């Protein structure tokens, strides 16, 4: 709308958006303690509020034709590309439609959560430290979104990882929280390992790391890359039996695009808690609830989806990677939803629901519906933040009497809170409907869009046809439907556990403590955060009525609930009201060629919406039956009957233990072996063994020193004898000067002189000379002729020895075809030595591209000598 006010190339408003949170973090962090809580709160809120306003202005001034507002700050560094050219990496920010929306979400939801947290954390001594980290997190998230190239995104990427480490471990005096923070950072770091690999690959193949740069040179990603066998492993270099087992006859080759996409996806899986690396998110609930709301619901976890959407043109080049993304998405959705079914901790339920909803988003981007996936990110931010904040206000109320974190979050201690906390109850209910997919709510539209595109999309790599060498992977026709039905199952489970949580918390009677009207806290001055409860648990706990949270906590709840209900209409495709869809459309226009409607799914859109709605109905009804009418009895019955399965699901399928036993255990054992080897083997051999050997040699030689003079004299005599022996016997040696061997075939032989020596040569051309003083002889050789020359030496003591020298002149014997080039053997083939074998004669037209394409282009090894 504002369109042309700002210069698109030097969009400095971004400085305001980025720097405000950074300044807020610095001021709160360094001076917070002295400024006092009010000032810290004011600083934090103004920082995020300002950033939000600036984001709104940016949102309005984003050009509609798919252009971007960019702002280059300075040259960060430059890296060497494929053929030695230097790839510049600048600190550059750019905003297009997607980034603008994400900025709105981050700063908008961020502001609401800051407002909420300023009330929630009021009594916490580390108030200024909390807001410093929160502001720093928003700065890092904004960096991530607005980054114009992968390294700047990576700065934000690890920045948010670092902030989540600090925030999860905020109450670090409890060992459990610190370990959860460390676990989150390390698992994120495993993801970042994938991102670093992807960046290295892109530098090599695309010669650039900015979004346009990669987009322009994305075709070079279609070069096949030999994955296996790596290095010089081949049938020859390996023992035979091992060789033909692990070395396939044709090397395993994969598109570079697939490698890059999978590496990127590993990063996204780490950050957005997908199946292999999701274990850190449930433990991240150890942090304060606003942290879970902001980081582990609205912003950070969606960074993975943002990255996949941002680099959709890379993912689209390899349908195999898209399939992996979609399948992992549906598997995560199912796994997390199943675990969420029986969790008792309210925040754990919400955590698993986040993981499951993220699975949905990855299904969306996996099947090529990037706009749908991104829209689900948009709506999920609202209702998940509202759920977490609702849970926070419930926990805040429970803290009145139950101070132990685990028991205050346990749903079995809650129940019937709808009477005491009406606002929290209704907002929680609204968000539950949204997430479960109640028709017309935000969740319904975004999830349905994903389900429909999963059902109908067919992904094909149209560009792959251009490179005939490797057949691109085609999607099996049934995969779309399989994902669709898996998602439907996950949706039912989502509806079930969400309403289970709702009913267990707000309905039924209050199980926390017996409510005594007008109850006053005996030791009022008690420090709110004291964890160790003195009074015994034998007599039932009394306490006041759980109170509704104060205004700054409930206001954000209401706003978020409103968005949860009505945000769906921003992109409701079936009823063609999709302003946000049109706004995002230019960003993903690159996807047309690759994603098309499956012919089997023509016109079935409205029909396929029914299973979605049915899922919602079944899930909600089941939850209502189990937890509202029968107040949770069936769950206990099921627990006794299928105890094993129940406990297995309750223990999160024991995936953590599986990881500990395999991956972590293996690395631990390897570390022990290395430490032991380092101490005993390497240090032992190099340091201690040599020391011991020298000591031993010392003792041996010491025995010679007997102190008696005659022994010394005798040893001297032996020495004399040895020298004498050497003098007495003759030594024959010959030095051959063959510098002119090649040209004239003439070799000058010279025998080593000695006292009283006489020489006799044999094997010369014909004449065997008698014993003469002559010690030097010249031998003439024909090309290709071999000759052995021996010299006999006699000395004054009439003792004689001999020494033979083999002489050989290279080249063909004179008779053969006189073609000998006379040059030494061809230069040896040194691995790694670049020798372009340029074929002589004309090059047929269609072979030219073979020469031009980067290394590994032809059938041979990937980065071998072909470069």
């Amino acid at each position, binding site marked *: 709308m504002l369109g042309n006010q700002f210069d698109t190339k030097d969009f400095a408003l971004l400085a305001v958006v980025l720097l405000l949170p950074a300044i807020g973090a610095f001021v709160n962090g360094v001076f917070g303690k002295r400024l006092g809580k009010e000032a810290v709160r004011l600083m934090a809120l103004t920082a995020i509020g300002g950033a939000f306003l600036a984001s709104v202005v940016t949102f309005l001034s984003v050009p509609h034709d798919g252009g971007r507002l960019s702002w280059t700050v300075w040259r960060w560094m430059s890296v060497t590309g494929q053929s030695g050219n230097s790839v510049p990496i600048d600190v550059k920010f750019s905003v297009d439609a997607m980034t603008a929306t994400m900025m709105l979400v981050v700063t908008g939801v961020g502001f609401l959560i800051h407002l909420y947290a300023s009330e929630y954390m009021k009594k916490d001594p580390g108030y200024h430290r909390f807001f410093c980290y929160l502001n720093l997190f928003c700065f890092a998230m904004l960096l991530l979104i607005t980054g114009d190239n992968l390294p700047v995104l990576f700065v934000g990427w690890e920045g948010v990882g670092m902030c989540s480490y600090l925030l999860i471990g905020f109450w670090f005096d409890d060992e459990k929280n610190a370990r959860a923070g460390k676990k989150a950072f390390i698992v994120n770091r495993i993801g970042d390992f994938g991102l670093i690999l992807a960046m290295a690959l892109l530098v090599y193949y695309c010669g650039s790391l900015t979004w346009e740069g990669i987009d322009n040179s994305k075709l070079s990603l279609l070069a096949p890359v030999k994955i296996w066998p790596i290095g010089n492993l081949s049938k020859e270099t390996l023992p035979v039996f091992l060789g033909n087992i692990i070395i396939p006859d044709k090397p395993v080759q994969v598109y570079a695009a697939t490698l890059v996409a999978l590496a990127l996806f590993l990063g996204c899986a780490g950050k957005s808690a997908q199946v292999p690396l999701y274990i850190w998110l449930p433990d991240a609930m150890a942090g304060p609830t606003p942290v879970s709301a902001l980081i582990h619901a609205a912003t950070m976890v969606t960074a993975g989806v943002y990255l996949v959407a941002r680099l959709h043109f890379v993912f689209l080049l390899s349908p195999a990677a898209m399939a992996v993304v979609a399948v992992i998405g549906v598997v995560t959705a199912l796994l997390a939803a199943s675990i969420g079914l029986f969790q008792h901790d309210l925040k754990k339920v919400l955590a698993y629901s986040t993981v499951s909803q993220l699975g949905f988003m990855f299904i969306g981007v996996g099947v090529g519906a990037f706009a749908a996936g991104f829209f689900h990110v948009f709506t999920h931010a609202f209702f998940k933040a509202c759920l977490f904040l609702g849970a926070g206000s419930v926990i805040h109320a429970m803290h009145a009497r139950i101070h132990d974190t685990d028991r205050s979050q346990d749903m079995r201690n809650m129940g019937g809170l709808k009477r005491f906390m009406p606002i929290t109850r209704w907002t929680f209910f609204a968000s539950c409907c949204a997430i479960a997919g109640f028709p017309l709510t935000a969740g319904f539209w975004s999830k349905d869009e994903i389900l429909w595109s999963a059902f109908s999309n067919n992904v094909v790599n149209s560009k792959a046809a251009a490179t005939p060498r490797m057949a691109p992977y085609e999607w099996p026709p049934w995969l779309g439907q399989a994902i669709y039905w898996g998602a439907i199952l996950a949706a039912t489970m989502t509806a079930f556990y969400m309403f289970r949580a709702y009913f267990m918390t707000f309905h039924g009677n209050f199980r926390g403590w017996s409510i005594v009207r007008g109850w006053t806290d005996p030791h009022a001055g008690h420090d709110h955060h004291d964890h160790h409860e003195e009074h015994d648990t034998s007599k039932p706990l009394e306490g006041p009525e759980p109170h509704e949270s104060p205004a700054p906590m409930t206001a954000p709840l209401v706003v978020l609930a409103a968005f949860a209900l009505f945000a769906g209409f921003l992109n409701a495709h079936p009823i063609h009201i999709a302003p946000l869809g049109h706004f995002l459309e230019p960003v993903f226009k690159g996807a047309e060629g690759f994603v098309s409607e499956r012919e089997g799914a023509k016109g079935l859109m409205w029909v396929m919406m029914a299973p979605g709605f049915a899922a919602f109905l079944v899930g909600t009804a089941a939850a209502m039956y189990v937890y509202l009418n029968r107040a949770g009895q069936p769950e206990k019955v099921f627990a006794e009957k299928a105890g094993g399965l129940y406990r297995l699901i309750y223990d999160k399928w024991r995936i953590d233990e599986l990881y500990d036993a395999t991956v972590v255990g293996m690395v631990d054992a390897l570390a022990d072996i290395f430490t032991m080897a380092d101490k005993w083997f390497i240090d032992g051999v190099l340091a201690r063994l040599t020391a011991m050997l020298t000591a031993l040699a010392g003792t041996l030689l*010491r025995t010679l*020193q*007997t*102190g*008696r*003079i*005659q022994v010394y*004299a*005798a040893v001297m*005599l032996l020495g004399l004898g040895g020298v004498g022996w050497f003098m007495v016997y003759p030594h024959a040696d010959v030095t051959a000067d063959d510098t002119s061997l090649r040209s004239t075939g003439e070799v000058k032989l010279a025998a080593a002189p000695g006292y009283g020596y006489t020489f006799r040569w044999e094997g010369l051309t014909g004449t065997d000379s008698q014993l003469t003083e002559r010690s030097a002889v010249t031998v003439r050789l024909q090309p290709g002729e071999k000759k052995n020359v021996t010299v006999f030496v006699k000395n004054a003591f009439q003792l004689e020895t001999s020494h033979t020298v083999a002489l050989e002149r290279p080249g063909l014997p004179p008779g053969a075809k006189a073609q000998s080039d006379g040059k030494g053997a061809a230069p040896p083939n040194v691995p790694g030595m670049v020798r372009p074998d340029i074929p002589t004669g004309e090059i047929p037209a269609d072979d030219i591209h073979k020469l031009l394409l980067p290394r590994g282009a032809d059938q041979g090894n990937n980065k071998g000598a072909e470069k």
Partner: protein
Amino acid sequence: MSTVPVEYFLIVAAVLFVVGAVGFLLRRNLLVLLMSIELMLNSVNLTLVAYNRLHAANHAGQNLAFFVIAVAAAEAAVGLAIVLAFFRVRKTIHSDEANLLKN
């Protein structure tokens, strides 16, 4: 002047040297050690003079022999002084006693 060929004298000198060496290596008495050293030195002098007889242009051999005698005398004096001091300390001149150099 004698017409005995020089080689004879060389042989005698060699035998005398071997006798001296045997004496030095086997006898346990320090004095006998010193005497056998004197014998060895004399045999060397004899060889020098014999060769000087063969190449009679100058008296190099004999001069060297002369100096060897001078040094031998000095060496004998000091050697005997040491033996005396050793005897005063160790009350014996048995060569095995002089083994302070043992490790």
